[in-house]
């Protein structure tokens, strides 16, 4: 029923107009003059569609960017399967699982935010965005605790911290695993989860700006592209984690009996 309301308030003349007619209508028809409509778009619908396509093209480049790292993971895991399994078993599965649930929940609250904007419930929009930001911060907090554990266990690859070089002696090696090769797993683990965490930090910043404008009543049923577009980015970051979680945390658990 909210959908109906949205349809009714939509500007009628959208299709079958020449550019000249639209320009003329811009000057006479007040329904075309939404304050958020940029002058180079014909109407709100076209502007929204262009924004959606824009973010999707960006997400394609992001998929390719993470794809390179997923390839590196696949290659080294196929070369050092038991080393990867041993090193992976040292990760904290409980924290990883909790983080997966937290991120899925944050995607859900983000979706609720977009929905609230679409049906014009401004208060719910702000609450949803606040919850999404909060859950994002919880994720980052748990990640920080995990990183610290790895630091304490001398599992930061290379010699990044003076006097604390990588030392695999704390990892229980599975049969056939060479401890010397376990460092590669931690390079890939930190590269992928680190890059994912940077995306989360950017996402939290982005959503904070969106929440600020949402609280000032900028978004409603006719104009909410920024909410939608940030949501698409947030869901994308969630998808990356959906793949990272089983690949990094669960790859060697079945050897543990």
């Amino acid at each position: 029923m909210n959908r109906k309301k949205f349809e009714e308030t939509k500007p009628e003349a959208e299709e079958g107009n020449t550019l000249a007619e639209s320009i003329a209508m811009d000057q006479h028809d007040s329904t075309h003059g939404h304050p958020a409509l940029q002058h180079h778009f014909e109407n709100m619908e076209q502007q929204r569609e262009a924004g959606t396509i824009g973010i999707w093209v960006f997400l394609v480049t992001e998929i390719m960017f993470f794809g390179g790292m997923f390839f590196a993971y696949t290659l080294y895991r196929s070369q050092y399967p038991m080393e990867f399994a041993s090193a992976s078993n040292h990760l904290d599965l409980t924290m990883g699982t909790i983080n997966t649930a937290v991120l899925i929940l944050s995607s859900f609250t983000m979706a609720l935010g977009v929905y609230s904007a679409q049906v014009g419930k401004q208060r719910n929009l702000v609450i949803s965005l606040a919850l999404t930001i909060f859950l994002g911060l919880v994720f980052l907090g748990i990640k920080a605790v995990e990183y610290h554990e790895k630091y304490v266990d001398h599992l930061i690859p290379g010699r990044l911290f003076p006097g604390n070089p990588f030392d695999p002696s704390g990892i229980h090696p599975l049969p056939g695993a060479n401890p010397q090769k376990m460092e590669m797993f931690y390079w890939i683990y930190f590269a992928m989860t680190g890059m994912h965490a940077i995306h989360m930090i950017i996402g939290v910043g982005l959503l904070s700006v969106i929440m600020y404008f949402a609280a000032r009543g900028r978004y409603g049923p006719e104009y909410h592209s920024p909410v939608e577009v940030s949501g698409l980015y947030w869901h994308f970051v969630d998808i990356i984690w959906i793949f990272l979680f089983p690949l990094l945390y669960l790859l060697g658990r079945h050897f543990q009996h």
Partner: protein
Amino acid sequence: MSEHIVSLKVYVIIAAALMIGTSLTVVAGKMDFPGPLNVIIALTIACVKATLVVLYFMHVRYSSKLVWLIFASAVFWLAILFSLTFADYWTRSWLVP
């Protein structure tokens, strides 16, 4: 085409399915399946979860053909990245020095 508003019910169902998928992947990860079945099961669950997010949370199911095409192009180029690079690494051992 105008915007499609996904109902709250759909969002709740998808979120619940994603949570179930997460539990499944943890349980399956601890079980010992023969051969490469463990990684196949893990990736299948991950792909199903990702598809649910793309179709419903990201509204691709209700989006224009152009958005479908853009997303499909990402999958296509990713397949090229993996297949061509692996074609190199897999065949290196064929060369006997």
